[in-house]
């Protein structure tokens, strides 16, 4: 009998049903236009009555106004992700852990950038999301360190050390690239052969493709050299294999656009892409939207797998980004039209 119990769906039914219930508690689409018409105190109050209540209440003594919202959003995101880890077991837990290392990378980048520009530790901590393997305390202690050497030695035991080992201060772009590459190569290498893991692999490879597409658009637009572009791209995509990337990086802007028509992503971006486009904002928003729609689509194909969990994580992240976009936009008095363009709904 043991084999009957052990095989099968491997703890997925519980976590997927729970995550779906959590997904139904995300902010509905209609709320965003309402948020656009509100002032920051009003938004804060609304958030204090929603899923963010606990975070807003907790932080209300320390912060106010925009800072309060910002911290509450970050804390809520970290808490949600940690909750996913807490309620999952075995394979899903392992896959979520690996995926969430993204936030370790994010935090290390934030700290290094902050140090590079001489930002105080408090300001660095504003942008930190303690959802990965590095805990909030650990990140705080790292952010409080003065010298790059101390930061490096604090991270010596982490898997990301090889990227920052040679860093002596100064330009960060190579380090950031290296970190991204380490993250994705670890992620791809960690995925095994079970069905859930294979689905996970497909999803992550698509994510790499979308990331590479964004990089290609940016670098092509800026007219960077082929070798520089290739350095920036992450290997291991789904449709854009290393060979395609190599070819694409050497093409001119118009040839690059023509070449894109061969890939399935073209149908998503064809409407906003043109040869004389000036801003990449639309393309990036469309690609983000494509990622979310893709996640939601595949999560319906395989309802009892890791995919609904990825779908939820993307959506939660998007919700937080959208609220932040609106609040930040309001703060600097951006016209509604521009804020709306940045929102991925």
């Amino acid at each position: 009998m043991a084999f009957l119990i052990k095989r099968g769906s491997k703890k997925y039914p519980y976590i997927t049903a729970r995550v779906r219930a959590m997904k139904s508690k995300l902010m509905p689409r209609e709320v965003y236009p309402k948020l656009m018409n509100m002032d920051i105190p009003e938004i804060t109050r609304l958030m204090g009555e929603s899923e963010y209540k606990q975070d807003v209440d907790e932080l209300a003594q320390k912060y106010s106004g925009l800072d309060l919202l910002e911290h509450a959003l970050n804390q809520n995101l970290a808490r949600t992700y940690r909750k996913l880890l807490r309620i999952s077991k075995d394979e899903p837990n392992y896959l979520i852990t690996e995926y969430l290392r993204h936030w370790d990378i994010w935090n290390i980048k934030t700290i290094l950038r902050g140090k590079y520009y001489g930002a105080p530790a408090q300001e660095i901590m504003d942008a930190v999301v303690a959802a990965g393997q590095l805990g909030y305390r650990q990140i705080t202690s790292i952010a409080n360190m003065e010298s790059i050497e101390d930061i490096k030695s604090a991270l010596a035991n982490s898997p990301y050390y090889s990227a920052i080992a040679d860093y002596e201060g100064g330009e960060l772009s190579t380090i950031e690239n290296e970190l991204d590459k380490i993250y994705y190569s670890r992620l791809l290498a960690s995925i095994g052969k079970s069905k859930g893991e294979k689905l996970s692999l497909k999803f992550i490879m698509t994510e790499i493709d979308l990331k590479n597409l964004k990089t290609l658009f940016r670098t092509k637009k800026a007219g960077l050299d082929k070798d520089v572009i290739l350095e920036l791209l992450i290997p291991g995509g789904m449709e854009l294999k290393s060979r395609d990337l190599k070819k694409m990086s050497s093409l001119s802007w118009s040839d690059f656009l023509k070449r894109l028509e061969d890939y399935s992503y073209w149908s998503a971006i064809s409407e906003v892409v043109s040869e004389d486009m000036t801003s990449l904002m639309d393309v990036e928003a469309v690609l983000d939207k494509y990622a979310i729609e893709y996640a939601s689509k595949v999560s319906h194909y395989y309802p009892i797998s890791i995919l609904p969990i990825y779908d939820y994580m993307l959506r939660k992240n998007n919700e937080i980004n959208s609220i932040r976009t609106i609040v930040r936009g309001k703060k600097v008095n951006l016209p509604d039209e521009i804020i709306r363009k940045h929102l991925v709904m």
Partner: protein
Amino acid sequence: MVDINLAEASVEQILANQRGLIAIGAGLAVGLSGIASALAEKDIGAAAVGAMAEREELFGKGLIMTVIPETIVIFGLVVAILLLFL
């Protein structure tokens, strides 16, 4: 196992033997269908508890979904009753 030589067995013995086989069949019908519905309910129950943990109002729906595979074992029970009493 009792070895019965059918050529020498009396009518009562043969009838008793058949009743025994029917009882085994009835037992299998209930037992196997019970295992089947347990396997089906395992995942549904886990999912229902998961959904309920986030939204308590899903208790009613979760309960109904969980007991739907129960029909399998009821069919098994019906078959067993038919075997034993008809």
